[in-house]
């Protein structure tokens, strides 16, 4: 019985070897590579993830403050200031959205902060009733940045109509309260995640250098690739363009209500993903250990080059998109689909080729089978 188990194990090891690409075949066992995984984890945590959260948290703090000012005095200049801050914070959120690990994963941070399309009907009825609990997972689609997008841009066709909701409307007090609750919750959740990285979680993350599927490298890499596939490719481009259904769906565009903002959000998320691949520090142009340097250490610089070339193609094609992806979908959806296809080519490079080269197994599958 014991022998049989050993044999099965042997089979598994050899099976893994047989799927190895002809490039770095001697890396099969994945523990004997000389790459410093701890240095990569430290670079991720100290130079990218933590500063990105800290930067975002600073902005969500300001967001909450400006929401307070607006609630106290809902005037035109307060609205403008709050709208601008909403955009600043939403853009900065794109830099952390992929890091769904640790406290963020535990809190379902991304789901609470950026589930779209917003369920505006439910938002309206909750404002009317004045009774709601934003802690409930059933309210993902009623809060976060998509709710602010609606509350600041979607309540009327111009800013005077929007302001009316917060001033002379019979539910004005409830509108203000809901707006404030949403902004406060974004800030509170962001603060909690940021504090975890400032606290114990940083070491727990960096010290977990194991090359097993529970190691930090394997786990965050799966998160990174999944984010790129499901949230960036599908969420920002695929669903609005109907890449799977064949029917465009403008309501699925991120920041549906604030005109001309969706492309910026998408491009920010894209450059953030590229920066992470390169190990680029948050806020400056220095780079540290990364997927790129890991691949190079494994003698797979060719693959790193392919991945970067494809990122480049995606950026070039994406520049052609309209500032408003909603407008893009409604006028020339084919360009959206073309961008989607370029993103999907990158998914293949990351999910198949890179993960194989790094001997990381995919812990999620695209099981859209039956």
């Amino acid at each position, binding site marked *: 019985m014991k*022998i*049989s188990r050993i*044999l*099965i194990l*042997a*089979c*598994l090891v*050899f*099976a*893994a*070897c*047989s*799927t190895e690409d002809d490039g770095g075949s001697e890396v099969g066992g994945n523990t004997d590579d000389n790459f410093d995984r701890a240095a990569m984890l430290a670079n991720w945590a100290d130079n990218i993830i933590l500063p990105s959260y800290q930067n975002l948290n600073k902005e969500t703090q300001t967001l909450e403050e400006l929401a307070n000012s607006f609630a106290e005095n809902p005037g035109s200049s307060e609205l403008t200031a709050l709208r601008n801050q909403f955009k600043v914070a939403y853009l900065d959120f794109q830099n952390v959205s992929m890091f769904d690990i640790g406290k963020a994963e535990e809190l379902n941070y991304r789901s609470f902060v950026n589930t779209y399309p917003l369920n505006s009907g439910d938002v309206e009825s909750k404002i009317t009733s004045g009774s709601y609990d934003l802690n409930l997972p059933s309210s993902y689609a009623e809060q976060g940045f998509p709710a602010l997008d609606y509350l600041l841009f979607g309540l009327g066709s111009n800013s005077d109509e929007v302001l009316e909701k917060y001033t002379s409307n019979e539910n004005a007090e409830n509108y203000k309260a809901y707006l404030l609750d949403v902004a406060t919750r974004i800030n509170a959740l962001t603060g909690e995640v940021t504090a975890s990285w400032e606290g114990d979680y940083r070491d727990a993350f960096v010290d977990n250098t194991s090359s097993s599927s529970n190691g930090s490298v394997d786990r965050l890499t799966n998160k990174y690739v999944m984010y790129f596939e499901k949230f960036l490719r599908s969420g920002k481009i*695929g669903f609005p*363009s*109907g*890449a*799977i*259904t*064949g*029917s465009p769906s403008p309501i699925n565009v991120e920041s549906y209500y604030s005109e001309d903002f969706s492309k910026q959000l998408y491009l920010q998320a894209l450059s953030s993903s590229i920066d992470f691949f390169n190990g680029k520090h948050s806020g400056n142009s220095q780079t540290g250990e990364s997927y790129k340097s890991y691949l190079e250490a494994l003698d797979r610089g060719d693959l790193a080059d392919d991945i970067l070339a494809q990122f480049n193609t995606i950026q070039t094609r994406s520049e052609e998109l309209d500032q408003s992806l909603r407008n893009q979908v409604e006028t020339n*959806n*084919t360009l959206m*689909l*073309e961008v*989607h*296809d*370029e993103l*999907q*080519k990158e998914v*293949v490079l990351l999910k*198949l080729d890179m993960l194989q080269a790094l001997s990381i*197994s*995919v812990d999620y*599958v*695209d*099981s859209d*089978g*039956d």
Partner: protein
Amino acid sequence: MKKLLFSAVLAGVTLVSCTSDDSLSPENENVETPATYNFERDNSSTVDFNGQTTRLQMAAELNSNFNDFDNATEELLLNMFVNENAPFENASLNESSKSVKSKVAASNLYFSTNTVESTEIKNDFDTYISEQMTTVKSAKDQLAEAGVPGQIADGTSERYVNEKGLEYNQAFAKGLIGALLVDQIANNYLSSAVLDEGDNRANNDAEITEEGKAYTTMEHKWDEAYGYLYGDPSIPSANPNSVLNESDDRLLFNYLGQVDRDEDFAGIAEETFEAFKIGRAAIVAGNYELRDEQVAIIQENLSKVVAVRAVHYLQGGKTNIEEGNYGSAFHELSEGFGFIYSLRFTHNPSTGAPYLSKAQIDTYKEQLLSGNGFWDVTPETLDAISEEIAAAFGFSVSEA
């Protein structure tokens, strides 16, 4: 002891594949050809393709309503295509989360980085529905002529055609054979990107089954391919060929039977079923080289069914045109058009691509539909297209 022996054999097989030397022959001795498509683990069947059966039933109900001008509407048929607003008589279909449209031109291999074309193809099928229920429906009580939609006599029955002589129900149904069935089987479920996705091989080798299921992921993917061909409820899943040419299926299995009935292609149905059985048994045994040999047989045979029927109907149309039977000619050419449409989804195992390029196939479609379409098309054009298709697939026009 038995288990130990099995592991040893497995180790042998994997070691062989590890050297990746394809001159070695696979160790087929450990894979016996099963008598039927029955596979079990711990006394439970591991075969499940209910999702495919669902989609085939949706397609069948949609097709059967295509010419029902009295009761069907554009909205109803479009709803059936996407399964929205409870469009089906069969209530269990309405409850399903699946739809036909979402799997049209949706294979991993051909369309995952080509949603531009995938969307164009989906739109073609939408257009067939819409045109049928607007243009053709509003002309149903007038006689068709060149450039004018309406009805046309075909013996004792009538056909409803557009202004080019095309029957949209045929374009839709025969196009779907390629765009849904062949594409999903040959280019999705039997592609290595799907069969070998993620840890499928390691999990299959270790018999790690899907959560709450009796099958491994790889086994299931194979069964899903099987289900698109043999999943109609009138077909016994263990031994489908027992109802060859007698089932209620009107899609790929039906035409596999029709091609098999032609003595030039006799045996293709049995060979295809054998390949499905052996490939499935090879997965159970972890013999992926043997599995992939069966994939190639299936891809080639199903592609050939599409091509043979395309040529068959073009030739039938030609004969009828020469005899002045326009109604019959248009019916056959409409079926032929649908099968030509389906050529785009064929899979040549030696290239991993369709047997004919998209550009060639587009040219054929254009030649058939330019000007007044079937009213104008010449026997020479039909012969030329037939010759090219037959040559690409390695059979002769007269055989079809």
